[in-house]
């Protein structure tokens, strides 16, 4: 306890003693003997002396009222807190901000454990201590931001129960330090920075997740466009960002495109995975032993039974009659449409369950335990870090056409980048177990179960390696050939997006007879690449998306090449 506080207690206690003594004296002399007035008039029934009875009444009245003061005071001190309106109003107390501002939150330290590699730390500038985000926009979708008025997001919010200093009973003015606990996460800050630069280099909205194998730890996760975590201090700019995130989330830098959530926490955003999803169908086929099927890819396209619309290939390519390996290498839509129908709805459903995907729009799957956690789940962690559950429609309502489309990642297939990364990791891990990802080093090892058999996983890796060596991604990887090996799968996905004007309001194409607006749409082609490296002994698995980046081999695969180069240079691929 501080000395001024002791002095204050001495002051008030002694002052109270003085008051008691004076009060005792005043009480003893409360009625100076009534004036013995000889004047008959003064003592008459209506004279001044008779007024004394009412004066005494006044004394009692005032005494009662004065007593009410400390009683009410005590109410505010001891009982008010139990009232809801008081507790709610208390959140606006200017004191809370003073106290919160003077506490120090915990640091967030990357996988190296070195303090100077922190993702969130404090810095001292001429004796002024301020919270700093050394990676800035490169990691803001992980670190989030923090402000007393506008709240916090990302780790700052999701892990606040760890980072926030526990308020001591006496407050920071008592001299005891109020310092929050540090948090270690699996991110590699150097790789994170490189990954962000690679994505920025694409010049398009893009996202990527990198997973370290076999630990299944996320070592980098980036999203472009991004923003500076300190922008929250600029009220006007921050409110513009928040407004944009509400009106036109597709363009907002607040969206963590890798996770499919706003960094502030919110409902999810999905992508069509395109041909990268063929990896899933191929996994089902290989694991089920259906690898010898041959299907024909024609110019007029494949027409599924009971449907009239044909399924064609990207750029109307024709592959002829081919087997699984070639179809995967060349990414043949017609082959996978036919393979999917051959595998059948039920078998596909069984494998979606293994991965934790929803196969039925009606099953109401909202959240699932996506992450492996070291300790208990922090409050609001899900809201910030759980990706929206990826979903397909393999229900009985889905037609053959719907199923065929989803087998090459179109139609109802709604997935997230991180889910695709988890799918690749499940295949890239030698045991073929479903990869359960984590952000926390030292999270206990546990797997939700097998995805494919180890031998099937090996065969799938070989197929992915051939994509890089002689398939759709061969061009992108040509410059790296010889000094790196990898496996992967390209993807090219078509989406229709609402078009927005410069004011973030949707553009109206026309207004129909009933006055409903019809919005303008633009067709975008997302570029995907998922894969792992090195080929024979995978150390990382990753998933890339470049929005409207054209074919997978055009934007996403080159970005993946640069990632592997960076990871090699940083020594991430070395076995330790």
């Amino acid at each position, binding site marked *: 306890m501080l000395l001024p506080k002791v002095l*204050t207690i001495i002051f008030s206690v002694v002052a109270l003693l003085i008051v008691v003594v004076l009060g005792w004296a*005043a009480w003893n*002399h409360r009625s100076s003997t009534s004036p013995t007035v000889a004047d008959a008039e003064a003592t008459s029934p209506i004279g001044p002396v008779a007024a004394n009875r009412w004066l005494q009444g006044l004394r009692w009245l005032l005494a009662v009222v004065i007593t009410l003061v400390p009683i009410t*005071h005590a109410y505010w001190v001891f009982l008010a807190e139990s009232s809801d309106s008081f507790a709610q109003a208390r959140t606006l107390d200017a004191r809370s901000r*003073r106290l919160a501002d003077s506490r120090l939150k915990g640091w967030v330290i990357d996988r190296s454990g070195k303090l100077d590699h922190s993702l969130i730390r404090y810095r001292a500038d001429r004796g002024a201590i301020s919270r700093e985000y050394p990676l800035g926009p490169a990691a803001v979708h992980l670190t989030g931001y923090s402000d007393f008025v506008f709240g916090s997001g990302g780790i700052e919010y999701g892990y606040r129960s760890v980072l926030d200093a526990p308020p001591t009973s006496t407050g920071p003015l008592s001299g005891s330090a109020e310092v929050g606990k540090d948090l270690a996460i699996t991110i590699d800050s150097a790789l994170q920075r490189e990954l962000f630069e690679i994505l920025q280099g694409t010049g398009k909205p893009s996202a990527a997740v990198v997973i370290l194998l076999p630990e299944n730890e996320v070592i980098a996760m980036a999203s472009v466009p991004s923003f500076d975590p300190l922008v929250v201090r600029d009220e006007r700019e921050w409110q513009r960002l928040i407004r944009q995130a509400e009106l036109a989330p597709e363009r907002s830098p607040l969206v963590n495109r890798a996770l499919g959530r706003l960094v502030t926490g919110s409902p999810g955003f999905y992508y069509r995975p395109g041909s990268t999803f063929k990896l899933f169908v191929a996994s089902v086929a290989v694991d089920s032993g259906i690898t010898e099927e041959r299907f024909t890819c024609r110019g007029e396209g494949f027409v599924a039974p009971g449907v009239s619309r044909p399924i064609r290939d990207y750029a109307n390519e024709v592959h002829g009659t081919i087997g699984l390996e070639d179809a995967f290498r060349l990414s043949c839509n017609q082959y996978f449409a036919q393979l999917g129908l051959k595998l059948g709805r039920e078998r596909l459903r069984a494998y979606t369950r293994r991965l934790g995907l929803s196969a039925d729009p009606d099953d109401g799957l909202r959240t699932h335990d996506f992450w492996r956690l070291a300790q208990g789940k922090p409050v609001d962690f899900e809201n910030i870090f759980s990706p929206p559950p990826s979903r397909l429609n393999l229900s009985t309502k889905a037609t053959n056409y719907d199923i065929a489309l989803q087998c090459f990642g179109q139609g109802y297939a709604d997935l997230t980048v991180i889910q695709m990364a988890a799918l690749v990791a499940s295949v890239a891990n030698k045991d073929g177990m479903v990869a359960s990802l984590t952000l926390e080093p030292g999270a206990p090892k546990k797997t939700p179960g097998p995805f494919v058999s180890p031998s099937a996983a090996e065969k799938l890796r070989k197929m992915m390696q051939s994509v890089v060596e002689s398939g759709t991604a061969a061009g992108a990887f040509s410059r790296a050939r010889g000094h790196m090996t990898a496996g992967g799968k390209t993807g090219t996905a078509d989406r229709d997006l609402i078009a927005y004007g410069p004011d973030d309001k949707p553009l109206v194409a026309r207004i129909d007879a009933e006055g409903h607006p019809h919005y303008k749409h633009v067709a975008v082609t997302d570029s995907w690449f998922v894969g792992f490296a090195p080929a024979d002994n995978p150390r990382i698995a990753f998933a890339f998306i470049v929005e409207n980046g054209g074919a997978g081999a055009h934007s996403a695969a080159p970005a993946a090449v640069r990632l592997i180069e960076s990871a090699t240079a940083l020594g991430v691929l070395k076995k330790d």
Partner: protein
Amino acid sequence: MRTASAQRTKPSFNLLAVVAIVTLAVLGYVAVIWSAEFRGYSPSKAVAVRDLTLFAPLVAVFIWLVRRQRFRGELVPFTAAILLFAFGMLTQYRLFSDPEYGARGVERTRAREIKTQTLRLRSVSAGYDVEKKALLFGQGGEVPEKPAGQIQTTERTAGALLTSVNTLVPIGAALALAAAFILFRNDRVLLFLQKHSLAIGLATLVPFAALVIGFADEGKFLGQTTPWEPVKVLFLVSFAGALSASYRRLGRTRWGLPPFRYVVPFAVITALPILPFFALSDFGQMLVFFGVYFTLYMIAVRKKAQLVYALAMVVIVFGIFFATSGLRTGFGVPGRVYQRFHMWTHTWEPPDPAAWWWKRDFERYLKAKNLTVDMTDQQDVAQRNSEAWSDRAMQLSQGIFGVNNGRTTGAGFGLGFPETIPVSDSDFVYAAAVEETGLIGGLVITGAIAILMLTGVAISLGSADMFTKLIAAGLTCFFCLQAIINIAGELRMLPMTGITLPFVSHGGWSLITSFAMLGMLLALSHRNATAAPRSLHEAEMHQNHASEAVSVLHKDSTIMSHFG
């Protein structure tokens, strides 16, 4: 029949208490300076010395009373007032030494930032390991005690300190006490005042009304001073004089009602101070006057039926008030009054944004903050309305949170956050004081008020004639009602009125007036004890006899006959 001398506390006892109080004040100042260093600013020590020196004139008056004036009355109210004064001065010093308090805009933000940074540095030096400290302040770097860029505290020159208002007001207060004592111990003066009470009332009203009409802005005059505080004394004397002259006639009631022809002139005298205060929108002061006048009337006239009538009227007024709060006009009652009532009953629930007494202030708030609100968007309007109301109710809420924050023993001088309560040096001084001294500090203040009440009533009981009896009772009522209305407003027992806490708030004229009123009370106490019990009536006879003159105005005088 000298009885009263045995009935008083010894001067030595009171002097001992005053010495103890001054010692406590020194302790408090040390605590404030100590805490300030801890929080990152340095209060002016010259001001501390000046403040403590200001007890000297009060102690001098104390000794002058006992030695030179051979004071025979009760000194306890003086001691209690010095205790309140010391507490108040300490709280003022605490607030004004804080660079954040009273500063505005950038200065305020900067002061707050430096205080925050000082605490952060303290946490770093106590809670961080060597590695982190090295990362922040370089290898082997020492954690500084304070951030760079101190808040400038310019020690003022001795001359500036001596001529500052804060020096002159307490000296003026001590002088006012002495002057009031000399005046009111004198029978001639009392007689003169009683005889000319009506003239005094009118003579006070004229310049007062001129001031009010000419210069007042929302109850404040020329920047936060209220030069009409002293008129309270004159109005009280005038009312007491009129009442002591006519109470016998007013007491001849039928159906509990006094004779009409005496009521009208009396009502005029009653209304004298109330109208200007109404014009000033100083409803706290109005409430105090109503309370004091009504109490004095009841003491003099003593009709239970009238007490019942009056209470019924209060109930009816409140009833009408609440019934009309939903209407579109206040029939002349300013919107501010309705706002204060709403703040009292629904502190943390914003009123309807369209209510007539709130709409304009809501729009003003939006304009001041440069906000635009889409009036058709209910949610947006509700959000902004709630913000505007929080802003309006901030003083009350911050005060209450401060009371809550103080707990039992308080945060400690300089260690709470009374700087977050707007105007906590005068209207909200109780909240500021108890945040740092807790419920115990609150008991000290209310206890001192109770002591003033007990001794004041005792002095009134001891007065032999109606005039001095009423003045003593009136002064006591002024102290108590003002204190209760002030504290009750802060504790949400009553609507907030913006009235000062006697002796504790240092509002310039308010402090001088309070000490002058204390001087009157002491004079009456002295008179009771020494004047070889005689009423003013006797004194008058005595005086007349001595001067061989025959007074036409005697006994209950006949002011009312001028009207009648």
